[in-house]
């Protein structure tokens, strides 16, 4: 119990620190966020052009707009960039600073991610609410059960994405080319997660692979729930697969971290 209280104190302090850093760089943060919107907007433009002549695979123009707005929204909420930070800390040996202190490096990283997500989430919710009276493309089901379902799916998606890229980043303990691996996974993720097109428009073999790669569960699943077009046998099935990925990747992280520390040679200085 006192350990939990102590951990909460650490998180509350770390989050205040990350908030202070975010404010120092508020301009950059905003630009990153706007920058991240470009890709879905361009993809959206392509699909609205394609669907101008009529619905494609069950999606008409309005559906595409709602879909890509949801991608933009969920995409920001599941984002993580720890691999780049971890790479830098490993390369420069600054990871040592964190290892010397009696609190896991993971808490430092994770608390940062939470702060940015709260920031992005608040901004986007405000934007969504402002847009509501003006256009019906942002209209989604406001049924409390639906909203809770979407929220849970987004939280699990964020956890899967976070642990996946954190675990990949830990390969940096063994190779200096870890970022190449990260880039490869990012590229696969673009295609398999539903960022380029709604899942039902992707080839059959992609849909068959759905449960065996983590990508759909990082983005496609919560987006489909948000837009009311799910492609899974049942909600329970969807959440079970999400949970399995989250648990599996967290276990992978724990193993890699423990082994990585043994090989860590605390480079530099």
């Amino acid at each position, binding site marked *: 119990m006192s350990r939990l209280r102590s951990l909460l104190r650490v998180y509350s302090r770390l989050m205040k620190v990350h908030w202070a850093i975010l404010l*120092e760089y508020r301009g950059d943060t905003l630009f990153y966020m706007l920058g991240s919107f470009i890709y879905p907007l361009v993809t959206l433009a392509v699909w609205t052009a394609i669907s101008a002549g009529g619905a494609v695979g069950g999606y008409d123009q309005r559906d595409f707009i709602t879909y890509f707005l949801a991608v933009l929204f969920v995409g920001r909420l599941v984002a993580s960039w720890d691999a780049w930070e971890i790479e830098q800390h490993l390369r420069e040996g600054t990871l040592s600073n964190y290892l*010397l202190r009696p609190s896991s490096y993971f808490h430092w990283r994770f608390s940062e991610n939470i702060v940015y997500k709260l920031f992005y989430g608040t901004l986007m919710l405000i934007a969504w609410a402002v847009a509501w009276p003006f256009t019906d493309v942002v209209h989604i089901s406001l049924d409390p059960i639906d909203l809770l379902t979407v929220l849970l799916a987004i939280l699990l998606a964020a956890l899967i994405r976070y642990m996946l890229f954190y675990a990949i980043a830990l390969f940096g303990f063994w190779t200096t080319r870890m970022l190449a691996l990260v880039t490869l996974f990012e590229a696969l993720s673009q295609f398999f997660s539903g960022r380029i097109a709604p899942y039902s428009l992707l080839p059959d073999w992609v849909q068959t692979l759905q449960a065996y790669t983590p990508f759909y569960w990082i983005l496609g699943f919560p987006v489909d729930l948000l837009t009311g077009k799910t492609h899974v046998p049942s909600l329970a099935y969807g959440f079970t697969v999400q949970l399995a990925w989250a648990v599996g990747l967290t276990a992978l992280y724990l193993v890699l971290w423990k082994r990585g520390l043994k090989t860590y040679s605390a480079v530099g200085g």
Partner: protein
Amino acid sequence: MDNRIVVDQLTKHFRVHEREAGLGGAVRSLFKRTFRTVEAVTDISLTIEPGEIVGFLGPNGAGKTTTMKMLTGLLHPTRGTVNVGGYVPYEQRAAFKKRITLVMGQKSQLIWDIPAMETFLVNQAIYEIPEAQFRETVDELTDLLELAPLLRKPVRNLSLGERMKCELAASLLHRPDIIFLDEPTIGLDVNMQETVRQFIHAYNERFNATVLLTSHYMADVTALCKRVIIINHGTILFDGQLERLVNDLAPYKVAKLVLSEPVTASRLSEYGDIMHHVHPQVTIKVNRSDVSAQSARMLAELPVQDFTIEDPPMEDVISLAFARDSA
């Protein structure tokens, strides 16, 4: 609680990947990787008693930092045993981390973009320092290191010396009783070096902390350490009292004279080896065993205007140790 450091036959060998320069080398290394073993530290044994301040000296690449990293738990030893304050460092237990600190002059634990006070508060939470003790320690450190005007400024706006002072404070908030200092005065001006030295001395007295210090500035060592350990090529060359080091390695003292009229070198060399001779200044090495006799002779026989006799500079003594090692 015991803050002794005991190290027995500690060894760290790295396997490093070697690559030829250029694109060809990069491609070849894709298929055939060649490895080389670097023996950073080999069979080091030492004991540091509670409350001791020990200087850990050696040229760059001698194995000082590798040893420090094994003592703080950042590196797993290849073989041998380490015990620091009753803990095995590489097990990285929280209780162990709360008792030690490592201050690196070239690396900062301070969070760059925000005031140092924020790092202090993070450390308060991480080290679970009770509020009252935290306030007291911060006040004390603020007093000793004159931090008051610095704590509210973003760290990136501090000068190197100011940052080092904040660094020391951040590293000692949890009142560790085993302290590792890796070049704590590097890049600091003379006044700031002196401040840091006095502070380390005061902290050691106050908490009976065990201190292991590396530095390239001999003034740090002579001011703080009674005992020094010299390491080169990963092995210990000397471990003992600073005085003994000087006596053993430099069995001479240095006589400095200012002459009122020129004297030939051949006449001066009667008293000892001439180290330096540009009229009117002369520096002569005099055998330790007959320092008083030779001094009396010089004063009586030479046109001496000014005369001092002192120990050789530490830098010279240390380089003698390295020279003896490679001979």
